[in-house]
């Protein structure tokens, strides 16, 4: 299986993601510069974190107009698993692939800390190895990470099971403590916390590393792991 990591000007978690995919999970991984198209033989796409275009105007909004996004949209329609982490999530939202928006944190500060996620949907390609309501310790690092949707949309995404992760406590003022959502088909997932920062014991202060299963879920879905 082949995974593509899309690199935008200002992406800064691309190398971390690449390291985890190749050295920890031994997946065939390739970088794709945002001005180039994605080849047809890619099995999954990851949009990593960072500050694409320096977060100018609004986090993710400029990158959402990159040439590569057209291919991402096509792949999303075809049902190919796509994961956006942090700035990647912001880009997917700005590109209209996921519902809602991401606003400045309630504290108005950048926040770098460990939080606990609760799994709300274990049917996506990135969560199929979790039990419902399982807890995942994981770090966040963002300034615009407060997920917001209006009441009507909230009702709708609840109904369609599009809430994938919630924080166990109030972290940044997100609507309904939402930390990650998916599209209606469930193949496109966006999340603010950084799973790539929590899959190795050396850098993970919490003993077992449940966020590894975000990547293992993908491997199971693609049939490279039982």
């Amino acid at each position, binding site marked *: 299986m082949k995974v593509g990591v899309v690199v935008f000007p200002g992406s*800064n978690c691309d190398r971390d993601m690449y390291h985890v995919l190749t050295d920890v999970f031994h997946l065939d991984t390739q970088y794709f510069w945002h001005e180039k198209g994605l080849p047809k033989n890619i099995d999954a796409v990851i949009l990593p*974190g960072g*500050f694409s275009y*320096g977060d100018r105007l609004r986090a993710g909004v400029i990158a959402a107009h990159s040439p590569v996004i057209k291919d991402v949209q096509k792949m999303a329609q075809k049902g190919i698993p796509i994961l956006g982490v942090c700035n990647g999530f912001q880009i997917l939202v700005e590109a209209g692939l996921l519902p809602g928006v991401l606003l400045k944190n309630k504290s108005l*500060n950048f*926040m770098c800390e460990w939080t606990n996620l609760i799994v709300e949907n274990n049917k996506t390609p990135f969560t199929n190895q979790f039990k419902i309501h399982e807890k995942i310790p994981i*770090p966040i*690092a963002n300034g615009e990470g407060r997920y917001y949707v209006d009441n009507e949309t909230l009702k709708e995404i609840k109904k369609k099971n599009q809430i994938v992760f919630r924080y166990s406590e109030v972290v940044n003022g997100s609507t309904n403590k939402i930390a990650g959502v998916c599209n209606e088909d469930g193949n496109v997932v966006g999340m603010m916390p950084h799973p790539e*920062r929590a899959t190795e014991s*050396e850098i993970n202060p919490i003993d077992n590393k449940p966020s590894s299963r975000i990547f293992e879920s993908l491997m199971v879905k693609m049939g490279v792991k039982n």
Partner: protein
Amino acid sequence: MSLESQELEELKSKIGRNPTSTELQIVAAEWSEHCSYKSSKKHLKMLPMEGPLVITEKGYDSGVLDVGGGYVVTAHIESHNHPSAVEPYGGAATGVGGVIRDILSAGTRPIAIFDGLRFGNIEKDQQARWLFKNAVTGIADYGNCLGIPTIGGEVEFDGCYENYALVDVAAIGFGKKENLIKNHSKKGDLVVLMGGSTGRDGIGGSQFASDSLESEDRSAVQIPDPFIEKLIIEAILEARNQKLIHAMKDLGGGGLSCAISETADALEIGIEMDVAKVHTRESDMHPDEIMVSESQERMLIITGKDKLKRLQDICKKFHIGCSVIGRVTSDNKMHIKKGNRTFANLPTDVVANATLLDLPSKKPIYLDSIEKEKKLKSISDYSKLMIKFLASPNIASKIWIYSQYDHEVGIRTVVKPGRDASVLRLDNGKFLSAKIDGNPKHCFINPREGAIGCFEEACRNVVCTGAKPIGMLDHLQFGNPKDPEIFWTFLESLKGLTDFAKFFKIPCVGGKVSLYNETPKGPIKPTPVIGVLGLIEKNPLISKKISDGDSLVMVGNTKDEMGGSEFFEYIHKFVGGKCPIVDFDESKNNMNAVLETIDNQLVKSAHDCSKGGLAVAVSELCLINNVGCKTLLGKIPGEKLEVDRILFSESHSRYLLVVEKKNIKELEKILQKHKTVFANIGKFGGGKIEFTHGTKSIIDLRVDKAQKTWLNSLRDLVLHG
């Protein structure tokens, strides 16, 4: 902000004619204190700079250490004090940018940032609060955007920085030894200016930083753009991988003037450049302005003609400016033209080497009486005092600051901020530990011993993670050097650091001198800030969960050294007394002993004892680990002292070790072998921080209550005053 009259005469006699206006601007920038180190350079040579791991190469702006397996670590420290005192957000942010480019110039990827911040009394002074808040945001916005983790630092508040700010930034780089840029060049090579456009910001910045701050000259402060910096980092590392860079220098203080003259001088070449080729932000800039603009995010690269196309392609990919502004000649001159017209033509060695000064020095009079103590009010309730102490800005947890910095990006951060030193994993299986420390309160009372103390404290901090110190960075910050008393304090600090570095064989791999740090009320206290890098071959000490019944072992003597302590200055508002003095032999024994106990995996956690003394150090262990501890003051090693002195003395070379019962015997054997003084002083467990003396309870605090105070007070102070 120009040359002094004797300097002008000197320039005239060296070039044998009157300089042009552009030449004057260039020389004034390059001969400024900021760029030339003219007051300090003669003396800085006393520091040991060589060692088995040190790699030296001409023209490097950062120190390089060989960490084995074909890898190197680079390090540098800079400050941005004057700009940050006027415009804290931009000043602090561009301070980060500058030191990052120094790391990049060696051809290494920046992997960590440290910041040392100093402001006035934020409890009373709203201006200090504003400076503090905005400097932190400036560092956060810049470092976070670059994706370089800010993993440590220190913050201090002291009345001597009223209306002023010290913003020190240290950075660490990492890379393969074979990828280091070997600065070289030959006639006909091209000179390329890469990155952001040259604008009117930061004009005369280096002279601005070389004088006392009298006007709020905001145009001398540069405008930060971390996004361009990030693109430059990636573009340069790509160019490095393709071996397109012959030589490289960051544009910092003095802008093009400094970069061109220093590069040419270091490589013994000449450079002919055309200012019309520089990509500028405004179309009507005069050559003088272009030569001294300190616009940020620019790099000077020397490349071969055959490599230019590939370098331009890389810049095109990242949409960053890339102008061929000149070529390398063999006449050792910097020839600045606009089209065909010459604006400056100067020998580079004249420009790059200001005449060094030998300033007079004299012991300050205040030092004659500073060590005398006065009678202090006795303390009736130590528990109450402790809560006040834990909430004080210098003691309180700095979590409000470091939680705004992305300290995990890059996924190397093994020990995260908030501990003694932070630890990064390296690609060769080893670990790097680093910390910066300063203590102006001690240095004011004794500039020599205070500086040594900062050095030892930084060493203690890396030792507590299991690392052996391998290199040091010094940043010497003082007032106006033309005042002989101030210059004396500078020399004393430098001599102290030199003695310690030589004794411990820790080479100085980088440094910076910042002078003319004066506030409306006078000079700042002597403020050397010392960074120490430590290497861990195998196992970093990652604190393990403390269990009920674990023992607290203290290594090192507690002495009657209260001068400059937080207890004297914050609680009693008294400046004076004898400051702590490092005993070199004791320091070495304790360091080696603690390292061996960590190597043998006998300790769960190690913590150094410094600001606030034993009382604060034990409390921090309890608060971080969420556990209580009962400490017996009668058992503390050292001479017999009053209770307040045992609790709050800031004597150096002291460590607290958390040890499981079963390891105590073996631990004691090692401590004895190294001839250390130590004692088992307490036991963990329960939910209270307790200190007793004989049968008397001295301090009795609930951990949860103290935690709340300690964690939140700094944030509350910044947000609500």
